[in-house]
């Protein structure tokens, strides 16, 4: 394999890894936001809602730059990759928290009432009845989010992270062949996202035929 092809494959793998890590941390942040949204204290709920609204209403591009410049100011000296991952995770967390919110409303309240009527403690209602169903319900949207992360990770190139887009820019700086290189890069992104899109469709088909719960 040529050096160029190797660099592109390396970049693509990096993009994939960064996206998966972003999704994992995103889920953790999303769970925290979802819990905040259920909090008894109104200010906590308001902060969570404002956070989600802000992330969804501003470009990821700007979020990445804000995090990149803000963190050193508060004493956190992170590498471009680390600050980029923070931005991606914070972004992803907001969107995934909306998926969790949707899943929670999709569960018929009667199921919770039946559990309450049976005197099952709240803790177990959450762990045994609500969460298992939420976990299954958010899988299809999560694949969509993963595709969004793969595309969004391209913006990390702006702060110098060497993922697929940055790798392409480095290659073009040497070969001066933008069209060919970008075409290959577009193809690699397309492969990853299209495959995920097919997975999403399969999962949605499973859900409607009732195989998954």
């Amino acid at each position: 394999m040529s050096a160029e092809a190797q660099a592109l494959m390396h970049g693509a793998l990096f993009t994939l890894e960064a996206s998966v890590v972003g999704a994992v941390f995103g889920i953790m942040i999303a769970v925290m936001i979802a819990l905040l949204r259920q909090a008894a204290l109104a200010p906590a709920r308001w902060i969570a809602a404002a956070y989600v609204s802000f992330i969804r209403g501003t470009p990821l591009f700007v979020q990445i730059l804000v995090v990149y410049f803000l963190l050193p100011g508060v004493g956190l000296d992170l590498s471009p990759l680390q600050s980029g991952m923070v931005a991606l995770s914070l972004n992803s967390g907001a969107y995934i928290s909306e998926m969790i919110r949707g899943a929670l409303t999709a569960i018929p309240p009667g199921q919770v009432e039946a559990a309450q009527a049976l005197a099952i403690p709240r803790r177990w209602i959450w762990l045994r009845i609500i969460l298992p169903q939420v976990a299954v319900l958010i899988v299809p949207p999560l694949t969509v989010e993963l595709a969004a992360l793969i595309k969004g990770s391209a913006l990390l190139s702006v702060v110098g992270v060497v993922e697929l887009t940055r790798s392409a820019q480095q290659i073009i700086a040497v070969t001066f062949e933008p069209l060919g290189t970008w075409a290959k890069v577009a193809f690699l992104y397309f492969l990853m996202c299209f495959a995920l899109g097919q997975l999403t469709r399969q999962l949605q088909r499973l859900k409607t035929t009732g195989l998954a719960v």
Partner: protein
Amino acid sequence: MSDARAPILRVERLSKSFAGSAVLHDVSFDVHQGERICIIGPSGSGKSTLLRCINQLDPPDFGSVSLDGVAVAGGHGRGSNGETIRRLRLSIGMVFQSFNLWPHMTVLQNLMEAPVRAKGVGKAEARQISIDLLRRVGLADKHGAYPTQLSGGQQQRVAIARALAMNPRIMLFDEPTSSLDPELVREVLDVMKGLARDGMTMLVVTHELRFAADVGDRIFFMDRGRILEDTPAPRFFAEPTTGRASQFLANLIGVT
């Protein structure tokens, strides 16, 4: 030795409003062990709300519910008296119109969940209780099935068994057959008749008048949040006391 005439359940001056309009007006009655009370009336009369206030799914605005002498007073709103309410619910079983089985668990898991999580019963013992109950409702062979694989009548029978798994003192049935296709109604009513024969105390909100006439000891006729009639079953169907009840029965029987 407890006084055999002390009521299992005493409801005193129960009132409940939703969004400003009163759904239950000052409702009071006693239920004794082994009594089967059928609650009938037009929709919106507060029948379901009455049941839901008894086990506090809808906490009453005013009044109290006492089970075996332990009272839970209304007016506190949801969430308070958590433990008292939970203990109350340990002795009250409820069956819903929409079954409310948990779709991601098997029938057996549905039955075992409450004894294990709410009462701390060991898994093996819970399993045995559950299988016996499934046998009792005629679904022993379906223990490994998921609710979506069962018919409506089967699901409701599972729901009844699930409530019975907690060994309640009193069973509340909220229109248990209203969501069922007509040919599936009978299997559920048969299970309920079996329960009645075995001496279970029950409050049943229903439109099934024949069931109420066969199985009910007392009939509550409710209209607009009040119990207009509390009459022994035979007398109610022969000749209701209030005009409203007569009118209701006439309309219903005219249809069927």
